[in-house]
């Protein structure tokens, strides 16, 4: 039936890597193959009966393919698959495990902005946005995707090295009763209880409380 006999080793470690629901398919080149290997990619919505080719990832020599727009509905789950070609022969299709954008994505730390008075600092946190295909598209905060989203906040007194931790549901925090003229450094993390998802901690944002009047 004209079916090509596929004797090429298979692409390896085919998996989705997802950050803020920017869902990119990655794989490693087949073992023992140098340059010149080309790939094609297809994907499927779990439960729907057909595989769909990704034209922009046909005959490519890179080992990744951005499937974010094809997998943007996070109420669905997906599979993706890769096939390799070299010198007229090919590999088998190699599939990912089932990909659930809601539970299998990683979340970036929140954006942190701080201001201070003489005895307090105010912290405003902003959750990252879900990936979107173009700037014109409506922005969706991950707060809308994960209603149970919370923030863990760390506040460090640079002079005494004393550190406090806070866990808050809303996105603002005022830390009172601080020492005037002292530097405090703030870092924050996103915590979703179910599904269990934690971002890393953000970079530290340091600010000095105003000197005593």
């Amino acid at each position: 039936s004209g079916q090509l006999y596929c004797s090429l080793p298979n692409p390896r470690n085919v998996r989705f890597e997802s950050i803020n629901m920017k869902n990119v398919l990655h794989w490693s080149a087949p073992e023992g193959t140098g340059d010149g290997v080309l790939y094609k990619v297809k994907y499927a919505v779990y439960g729907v009966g057909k595989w769909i080719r990704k034209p922009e990832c046909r005959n490519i020599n890179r080992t990744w393919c951005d499937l974010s727009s094809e997998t943007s509905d996070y109420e669905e789950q997906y599979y993706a698959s890769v096939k390799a070609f070299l010198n007229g022969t090919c590999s088998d299709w190699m599939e990912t495990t089932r990909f659930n954008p809601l539970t299998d994505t990683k979340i970036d730390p929140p954006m942190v902005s701080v201001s201070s008075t003489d005895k307090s600092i105010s912290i405003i946190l902003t959750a990252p946005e879900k990936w979107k295909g173009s700037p014109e598209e409506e922005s969706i905060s991950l707060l809308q995707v994960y209603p149970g989203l919370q923030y863990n906040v760390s506040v460090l007194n640079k002079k005494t090295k004393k550190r406090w931790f806070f866990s808050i549901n809303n996105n603002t925090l005022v830390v009172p009763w601080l020492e005037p003229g002292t530097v405090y450094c703030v870092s924050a993390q996103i915590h979703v209880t179910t599904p269990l998802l934690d971002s890393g901690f953000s970079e530290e944002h340091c600010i000095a409380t105003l000197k005593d009047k």
Partner: protein
Amino acid sequence: TAGVKIFHFGACRVPVSMTEIRAGFTAIKANIQSRDPIRTLSILSHPHSLHKVKSSDRCCITHHLFTFYVDKVFKHCRTEDSFVNRKISSIANSFLSARRKLGQCREQNNCVCGEESTERFKQILANYEGLNVTSAAMKSLGELDILLDWME
């Protein structure tokens, strides 16, 4: 208690240990889903998505689905892996206590079944009965996150 989420269905309050269920499922998800080779069929999410269920029908569908998992899924999912089996029985126990509470809601008439939810659940059963019992049970277990995502 930490990790227990209270679901409100009208006047009824149903505590479900979601964190424990999620953690148990995450631990066995790859193992269970790898036993389900059928990509083109889903028990819960096609042709009808749970996400299209009217809020008035949520209690009834949830009760139907918890009964479905207790009566038709967990008991048919024994594996050769004792770790997986332990996780399955832990999830099953959480479902049993939540189903008991949901049953009380139904007795107090807080869990009315509309025509749409009855139809939707019939479709789920038809999807299930379209496969042999073990395949259908394993596929349903592999779709537990679809149920949990919808519930939350």
